[in-house]
């Protein structure tokens, strides 16, 4: 039954024949070459995984080969299929164990399969469904009687088949090359799926079309690497439920044409399964690792491959909606801001300010100043940073101008590192360093310690013998008042807490920045603070009420301009943000 098919003339020869009985062409040499190539091929069809470099097309191809093994090795209808010499039936169970050669990704896939039963992804699920469909197709195509399968093929291909299958079979039996192209259409496809006459029928196959799940599989497979092969095989696969090796799928398939199917009557008899070497010499490839890959492993490998492909897939870049003219708008805004403030500073004439009602904290401070004796001793505490120097100078000037008069004595201490320089600059600006006697108490690093030390300045009623006597009087008993200049709420609060507890009889007046004023207002309401003034706005009222003409009145216009610009910017920004929110729809208005 089985024999060797001559690659030259196609005649059937006995297995033991060395030369073709018809044409005399050598058979053994080519058979040996085929055997050698078969030995190089993986016995397990899933070994295509390694050849395909673990990619999705390779996996799918291996999937199809796995299902192709049954009809190829076990012909239906009891017909024998003789494998070539030296070619053993493909059985993955007989693969030699080579655990040490397993790739790392496969080991991980197996581990994950053991840990997670449902670790397969969407692609894998589709493959499983495709496998089921493939099995159904195979089961329906492998009827007990092969003729019915032939009839099925004819019916599916009925639109193209105009002649009865029997006649076509006869024509095919006498030689496929003698028949017309229409007569041998379906047979050529079968031969093509077996690896023969690919070149002849290539164009015809390209014209075919189909919509089965296997077509999707093939399209999925070849679409990733071989877009040109997408249309070559779909109908073949659909009709015959066997795989057509894709051209260029791997190196071996480029050079091997596989098997020959011959129709006898209504039956398709696979008379010989011969691997014929292609004219071009085979490319030597390294021996692929012998891997026993299960279905679940393969599915997870598919999932892994799909994940990698998804990660590498190109995605649309979200373009910034930033307007190109933003820099111009910013430049204009900056110029307007800076220009307006600078321009307003050129008005050197004092602003004419209406006399506003005086807050009670201002009135109390003025009252305290007016009640000060001519030779009063005062303590000035500088507790602000250099950043607030300009604001604090504007606020403190009108008060200190009223306080500092010749004959009075000032003691100065500072609790910020820059305090000494700042205090000297401020006092020299108002002429205090010339008019009054100043006593520099120095820098004290912590407000809390300093305030506490100032509060406990009372002389000790008794002396502890083992301790040194306190030789320095930090705060004189006869200070008529304390003026604290502070830029923060925390710094001022420490002084208020300590002095109001330790020496409640000493008046404490505050000169504050605008940010500290509101927070310290409750201390004035509670009586712990004698008077206070905070911020440029209050200093302007104070100066206007006292009839002063200091720097505060000159810079008031610039201050107003800056505030007005900030209000304008905020309102504009609110409107702009509101329109953007409406346009974007990100936030519901």
């Amino acid at each position: 039954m089985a024999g060797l098919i001559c690659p030259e003339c196609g005649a059937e020869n006995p297995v033991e024949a060395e030369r073709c009985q018809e044409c005399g062409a050598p058979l053994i040499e080519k058979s040996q070459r085929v055997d050698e190539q078969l030995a190089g091929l993986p016995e397990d069809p899933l070994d295509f995984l390694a050849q395909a470099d673990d990619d999705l097309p390779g996996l799918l191809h291996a999937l199809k080969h796995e299902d192709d093994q049954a009809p190829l090795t076990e012909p239906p209808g009891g017909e024998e299929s003789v494998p070539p010499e030296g070619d053993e039936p493909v059985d993955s169970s007989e693969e030699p164990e080579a655990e040490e050669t397993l790739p790392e990704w496969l080991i991980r896939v197996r581990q994950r399969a053991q840990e997670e039963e449902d670790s397969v992804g969407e692609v894998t699920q589709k493959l499983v469904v495709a496998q089921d469909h493939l099995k159904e197709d195979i089961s329906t195509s492998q009827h007990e009687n092969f003729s019915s399968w032939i009839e099925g093929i004819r019916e599916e291909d009925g639109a193209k088949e105009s002649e009865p299958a029997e006649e076509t079979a006869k024509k095919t039996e006498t030689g496929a090359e003698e028949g017309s192209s229409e007569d041998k259409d379906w047979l050529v496809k079968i031969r093509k799926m077996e690896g023969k006459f690919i070149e002849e029928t290539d164009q015809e196959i390209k014209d075919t079309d189909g919509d089965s799940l296997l077509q999707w599989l093939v399209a999925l497979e070849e679409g990733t690497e071989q877009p040109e092969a997408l249309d070559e095989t779909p109908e073949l696969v659909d009709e015959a439920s066997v795989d057509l090796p894709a051209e260029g799928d791997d190196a071996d398939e480029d050079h091997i044409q596989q098997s020959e199917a011959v129709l006898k009557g209504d039956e398709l008899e696979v008379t010989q399964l011969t691997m014929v070497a292609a004219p071009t010499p085979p490319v030597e490839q390294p021996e692929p690792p012998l891997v026993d890959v299960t279905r679940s492993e393969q599915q997870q490998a598919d999932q892994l491959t799909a994940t990698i492909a998804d990660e590498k897939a190109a995605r649309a870049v979200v373009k910034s909606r930033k307007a190109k003219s933003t820099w111009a708008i910013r430049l204009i805004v900056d110029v307007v801001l800076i220009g307006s403030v600078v321009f307003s500073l050129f008005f050197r004439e004092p602003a004419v300010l209406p006399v506003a009602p005086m807050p009670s904290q201002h009135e109390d401070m003025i009252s305290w100043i007016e009640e000060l004796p001519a030779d009063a001793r005062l303590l000035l505490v500088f507790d602000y940073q250099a950043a607030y120097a300009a604001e604090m100078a504007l606020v403190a000037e009108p008060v200190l101008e009223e306080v500092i008069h010749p004959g009075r004595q000032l003691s100065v201490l500072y609790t910020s590192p820059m305090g000494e320089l700042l205090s000297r600059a401020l006092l020299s600006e108002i002429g205090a360093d010339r008019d009054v006697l100043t006593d520099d108490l120095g820098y004290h690093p912590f407000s809390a310690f300093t305030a506490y030390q100032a509060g406990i300045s009372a002389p000790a009623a008794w002396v502890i013998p083992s301790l040194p006597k306190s030789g320095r009087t930090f705060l004189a008993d006869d200070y008529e008042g304390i003026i604290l200049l502070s830029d923060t709420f925390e710094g001022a609060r420490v002084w208020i807490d300590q002095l109001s507890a330790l020496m409640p009889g000493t008046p404490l007046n505050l000169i504050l920045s605008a940010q500290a004023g509101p927070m310290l207002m409750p201390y004035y309401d509670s009586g712990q603070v004698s008077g206070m003034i905070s911020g440029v706005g209050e200093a302007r009222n104070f100066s206007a009420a006292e009839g002063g003409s200091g720097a505060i009145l000159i810079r008031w216009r610039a201050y107003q301009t800056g505030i007005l610009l900030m209000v304008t910017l905020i309102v504009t920004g609110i409107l702009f943000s509101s329109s953007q929110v409406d346009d974007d729809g990100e936030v519901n208005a």
Partner: protein
Amino acid sequence: MKKLPAIIVSVAIGLTVLAGYFFQAELSTVLSLIVDWGILLAGVAGLIGLGYLAQYHLTRLMKREKGAFFSLITLLVFLFTLVAGLTLTTQNPFYRNLILNVQVSVEASLLAVLAVTLMFASLKLIRTRGWTPMSVGFLISALISLVLNLGVGMTESGTVLGELVAFWRRLPIVGARGILLGMAIGGLIVGLRILLGMHRPYGEE
């Protein structure tokens, strides 16, 4: 057991300082000594901080790490300021103007940048939160405070506008009172915990 001396010292000093509020005349000598120690330790801590800062920048400079150039500038300026301060002293007008004109300008610029940043951050409130009562209330409060600082509405009390302006001016104080009360109660509790040895900020818990 190792923590016991530290606890005893801290609690004893705390109780002594607390007693100083009630027996000031009797304890003034001890309290002055304690405060002097505290100030001395604070000054030493400042010197240690300076040493660490110099060491950090010196290390970066020696290892030629990224940003070593700026470390070099920092060290040079630090040394210049130190030497000039020791030799010229703060009485020297040149030294005083040199430091003030640099320090005041830099810090004021940073503060101005902070103000502008806060303003734009308040504008982004609408984008991120939308027109919620909190965002609207925040922006309206900011606008009203700014307008009031312009000197608008300086009218005599008794009029409707005067009362309204007075109300708006008092409004921040209401929040301030709540914050102050919370801080006072929190400080009281922390002080009691330290005095009782339950809270030890000077060492590991």
